[in-house]
């Protein structure tokens, strides 16, 4: 439906459809973003606008630049070109409206902190410089731990938590930020089934509350169950849109090339009933 030529910016120019969408209404828009490591392009001219209040999966093969897309859009790594807008504002001015969940492997879990300490880090922005967390902040952090089912582990040293538990703590920290847009880098990587369920429940709650959520996702088999929209990347923007119309064997073939067996593709399209 939305192929490379029309890219993700259809929302910006959708005036002919009669809907006049203002830039202030677009939660997360990336325009012409190119990123390269040592002259090797990882992302090439990617433009995309996330649908407001939807749960979107960012999918694509290994090395497709899914994590890089989030990091570069947030300004965490240098990019050669492109800009990110959050509700019409440049992202540098709108970081308070965004919550980012990095990959679990990005940090050293032997760090001297407990689960609630980490969640509290999501509140530092609200607490401000030179001030200390109050009882109110602690209560808030506790509530966030509760919503991911980790309240019993609040005072556990983070290194003693299992991978799934660590991931839940990361999620709780993002919840504490009370943002409008959530960007998550592989929150399902290496977690147990119960954690996966807990995370999905939290994601659905966020969307029900009107938040916009983008998740780097690996498992093609669960895309249909978990998400309403997808963004397909393969170094470049391949396609984006609702799962029913965009999560098609043709688009997947474009993104994954020969890396997906045709039987796999058939299986995925059958699940759609298409």
């Amino acid at each position: 439906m939305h192929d490379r030529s029309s890219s993700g910016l259809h929302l910006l120019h959708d005036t002919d459809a009669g809907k006049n969408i203002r830039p202030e209404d677009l939660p997360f828009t990336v325009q012409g973003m190119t990123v390269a490591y040592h002259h090797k392009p990882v992302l090439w001219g990617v433009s995309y606008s996330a649908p407001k209040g939807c749960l979107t999966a960012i999918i694509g093969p290994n090395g497709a630049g899914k994590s890089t897309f989030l990091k570069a859009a947030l300004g965490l790594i240098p990019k050669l070109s492109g800009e990110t807008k959050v509700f019409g504002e440049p992202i540098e001015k709108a970081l308070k409206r965004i919550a980012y969940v990095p990959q679990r492997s990005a940090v050293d879990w032997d760090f001297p902190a407990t689960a609630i300490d980490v969640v509290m880090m999501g509140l530092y922005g609200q607490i401000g410089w030179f001030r200390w967390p109050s009882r109110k902040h602690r209560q808030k952090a506790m509530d966030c731990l509760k919503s991911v089912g980790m309240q019993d582990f609040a005072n556990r040293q983070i290194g003693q938590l299992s991978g799934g538990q660590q991931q839940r703590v990361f999620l709780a920290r993002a919840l504490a930020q009370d943002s409008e847009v959530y960007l998550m880098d592989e929150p399902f990587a290496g977690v147990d089934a119960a954690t996966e369920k807990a995370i999905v429940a939290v994601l659905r709650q966020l969307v029900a509350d009107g938040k916009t959520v983008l998740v780097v996702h690996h498992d093609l088999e669960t895309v249909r169950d978990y998400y309403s929209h997808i963004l397909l990347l393969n170094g470049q923007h391949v396609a984006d849109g609702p799962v029913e119309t965009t999560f098609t064997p043709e688009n997947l073939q474009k993104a994954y090339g020969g890396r997906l067996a045709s039987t796999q593709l058939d299986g995925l399209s059958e699940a759609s009933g298409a």
Partner: protein
Amino acid sequence: MEQFFAALTLSAGYNTALVCIGAALLGAASGAIGVFVLLRKRTLVSDAVSHATLPGVALAFIIAQVYFGSGRSLPVLLFGAALSAGIGVLAVDWIKTHTRLTEDAAIGTVLSTFFAVGMVLLTIIQSMSISGQAGLEGFLLGATSGMLKSEALTIAVAAALVGLAVVLRMKEFSLLCFDEGFAAASGYNVRWLDRTLLLLLLGIVVIGLKTVGLVLIIALAIIPPVAARFWTDRVPVLVAIAAGIGASGSYIGAALSASAPNMPTGGLIVLVLFSFFVVSLLVSPVRGVLAAALKHYRFQRIVHLRQGLLAIAHNEPVLEPLTRSILRRGGFMSGDGQPTVKGQSEARLIERDQKLWNLYREMHPEESHALADWSLKPIGEVLPADTVKVLEQELSPHVVHPEESGKGGAN
């Protein structure tokens, strides 16, 4: 000895007392900033910073000698030290970002080059045969014997300021050290925070040059937090303990040096700090070596107890003497090797717990691989309640066919 206790109790004269207090404040501040240098994994950078001060000190001495007639002015020398250390840090930063060299390679190059320049300049100063140059050697290994009152006061005030800055920035530094990406995405200027951290470290290095000397000053920022890490798993506590260790070690070292003026102050301070480190390493109940050995001993007993109880549950004989004695002491087995009533009921509980664990490991091999304490603690103490509930529901059909669950127990 008498002199040492006099210095220790601040009764060896006003000057000595001031030097000792200054050293204690220096130790506290460097311990506090050291925590974040350690957590940021940048202890090597601090080594580059300290060695890069030498050419600055020597150049400042030469310039001051030429223009003011005397090179022995502490503020001028420290200014020179700060300047060249700053250039050194920027050089490391530049090499790291503009070439494909790693940080340790950049540090090694900068550190040795700056130190070499400094040594050459020192030799030139010696050949100039000017008075007052003897004081310069104190910058290498530290000397408090000839320290002026004003110098000691400057050190004390500057150290107190750095310490205060670290405490006020503790939240942001913790965030930076734990999760740089998250900090940046939350709107913190990570580069600027990093610079602040290095600037405070640089401040400590410069004001500590005179007391501890540039070769050893870095020990003052590394050993206290490393020793403190054995005692706690919380950042604020870590900062407090590191500051305490740094302060007391420097204080005792300075007092020792006051009673033996021809000993290098820096060396004495570092040796005292090292003794704190050794004690922490051995006896800390949190991460110490002895505690770890004790933990291992207990761990072994838990394993034997559990396996013994499982053997009882499966009606298998318990053969290992250690297991038998542990079971007997716990009242789970009588003297003739027969399980007691208490032993049998406990065995049933453990068997159920073990089944849940086996199921968990079957269902989530990757997860459980990284998990500590599986099959050692009751499953509810290790895994969240919702996970256990899923396992319990899953287990019910297995209970109906005990011969099936035996499969899981075999691995």
